[in-house]
């Protein structure tokens, strides 16, 4: 298993290289340059050119790329043009929010998604099934920010039960209370994704329940709920595990909209603002971190596959 992990991580390197070239090209092709944004409205072209030179952005692209690449290989992602702080610390700040948000959203998905999925599969066709899968699909059709806006209005502004936006850093156990800042955002994010998971659990459970070994289980006189959980769901979990992996990865990076509505200092928000500010090192750093995250999540999904399904062997 360990060897397999190493092998997979090694294959990550070409992907990272490709991604880094792609991102570097994209980012430098976008019109607008950091120096003019930094200096603001009244800066004269000479002043902008001077600062560009100081920041080393006037050198040809290729030189800049390799200069940056050599630094990255040594683990130094450079300094943010905007904050002056090291890129990694800027990203780490955002990463904590995004990952906590994604984790909390996954909790909702597991608490709501799986039981409802199993329920609607077990009562296939009856009103329970139609209600839940219909409801799940309805939630999957709601634009995230629209839902977020109304959740803020109702629960934060009118009822005042929960904070409306922002997320103070969690720098110790005492600060766990800050998690309530993520309640509304995680529910907003969970709704559409839970709907996907519900439909997936239902579909894969229905497929599995048609297989012969389930009939064997019934022939053993087992209680229907034991058949549903131990035999049907256990097998359906394999397909569901894959979807969980992708959903988590998507949550961390797709949560841009939710982060904007709730103004959470996450990675998504960081990239949007960095692109508006043309903060090249941060954009490149974040994209690489996200590519690594995707690769790690894919790897975890494959490892989970092997754990869940003995037929899969890790070559």
């Amino acid at each position, binding site marked *: 298993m360990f060897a397999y992990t190493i092998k997979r991580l090694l294959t990550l390197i070409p992907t990272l290289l490709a991604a880094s070239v792609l991102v570097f090209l994209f980012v430098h092709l976008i019109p607008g340059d950091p120096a003019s944004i930094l200096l603001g409205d009244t800066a004269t072209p000479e002043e902008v050119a001077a600062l560009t030179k100081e920041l080393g952005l006037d050198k040809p692209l290729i030189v800049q790329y390799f200069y940056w690449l050599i630094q990255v290989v040594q683990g130094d992602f450079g300094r943010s043009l905007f904050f002056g702080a090291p890129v990694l610390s800027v990203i780490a700040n955002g990463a904590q929010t995004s990952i906590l948000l994604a984790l909390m959203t996954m909790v909702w998905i597991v608490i709501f998604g799986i039981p409802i999925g199993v329920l609607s599969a077990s009562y296939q066709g009856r009103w329970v099934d139609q209600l839940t899968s219909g409801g799940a699909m309805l939630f999957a059709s709601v634009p995230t920010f629209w839902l977020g806006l109304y959740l803020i209005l109702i629960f934060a502004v009118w009822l005042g039960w929960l904070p409306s936006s922002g997320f103070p850093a969690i720098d110790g156990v005492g600060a766990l209370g800050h998690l309530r800042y993520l309640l509304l955002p995680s529910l907003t994010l969970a709704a559409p994704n839970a709907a996907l998971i519900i439909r997936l659990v239902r579909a894969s459970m229905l497929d599995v329940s048609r297989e012969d070994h389930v009939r064997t289980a019934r022939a053993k006189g087992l209680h229907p709920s034991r058949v549903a959980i131990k035999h049907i769901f256990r*097998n359906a979990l394999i397909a569901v595990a894959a979807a969980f992996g992708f959903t988590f990865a998507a949550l961390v990076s797709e949560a841009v909209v939710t982060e904007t509505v709730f103004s959470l200092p996450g990675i998504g928000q960081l990239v949007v603002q960095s692109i508006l500010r043309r903060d090249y090192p941060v954009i490149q750093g974040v994209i690489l971190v996200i590519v690594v995250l995707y690769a790690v999540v894919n790897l975890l999904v494959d490892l989970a596959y092997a754990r869940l399904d003995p037929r899969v062997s890790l070559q």
Partner: protein
Amino acid sequence: MPLLEVDNLEIAIAMRGQLLPVVRGISFSVDEGETLGIVGESGCGKSLTSLAIMGLLDGTPVRITGGDIRFEGQDLRQLNRRERRAIMGSRMAMIFQEPMTSLNPVYRIGDQIVENLRQHQKISQKAARARAIELLELVRIPEPQQRVDSYPHQMSGGQRQRVMIAMALSCDPKLLIADEPTTALDVTVQKEVLDLMADLQERMGTAIVLISHDLGVIAETCDKVAVMYRGKIAEAAPTDDLFARLAHPYTRGLLNSIPVVDRDVEWLEAIPGRVPGIDEDIEGCAFHPRCPRAQDICRRNEPKQHRIGNEHTSHCHFAEEAAP
């Protein structure tokens, strides 16, 4: 009192809003330790009958619409779900056609046998595991101590069917229903499995209901035979009486279509026509469109049951003359 009595059983399937009959009233019985073979082309209702007896029709569009099934004197249709489940896997058990997919791929075979044991008996995990190893040995699986922990995909089709048999017989059931157990296996393994079943029957006194479309298999292993055609029993008799004196043209047709090794034949005989669709209803004897000896009477009214020998019955107007 026979172990299993099926009296005028009727089964129908709910399709596109209506109930279409599949089994149209069949009766037969099996005594303890006896082997009954049910043979017929696919679609004649033999598999559904076995599922009905085993109680596996819940949650499927198939319903029992008439008749009784009595097992050890109890009418199975009166039992509630819990009582029905108490019998399944303990008093009666079943093995299926597709060994490759009949075992749960994610659990070790030992655990799947243990599951059946612990469902019906107060037995510790350790004791159940030991019992499972014994059962694997009983069904002639090599190195049962190791194989108990292997996964289904690590075993061949024949071995898996043996595991199914071990699992089925784990609680020493009175009745074993085998729905085409060897069809998916190649011939050599087929023989081994059938011998194993006969041997275990000998040792444990288990009654067997063997369902197959292969007359050869039935002839070799069964004490008595029921030939089903389109939801009805065309002919039933002890195996020797049946082959001694055929009393139904359909059975004759089945027999003739088996190639004989030492006879070189230009064309293999086949029964002309096809089995009528489930939603076609046919006047008179259901077999008349394909029966070489069909007369007017066959086309008009249904044949009633004719007794030929002491247990030899046939549903054919000319049962008596249909001799070889």
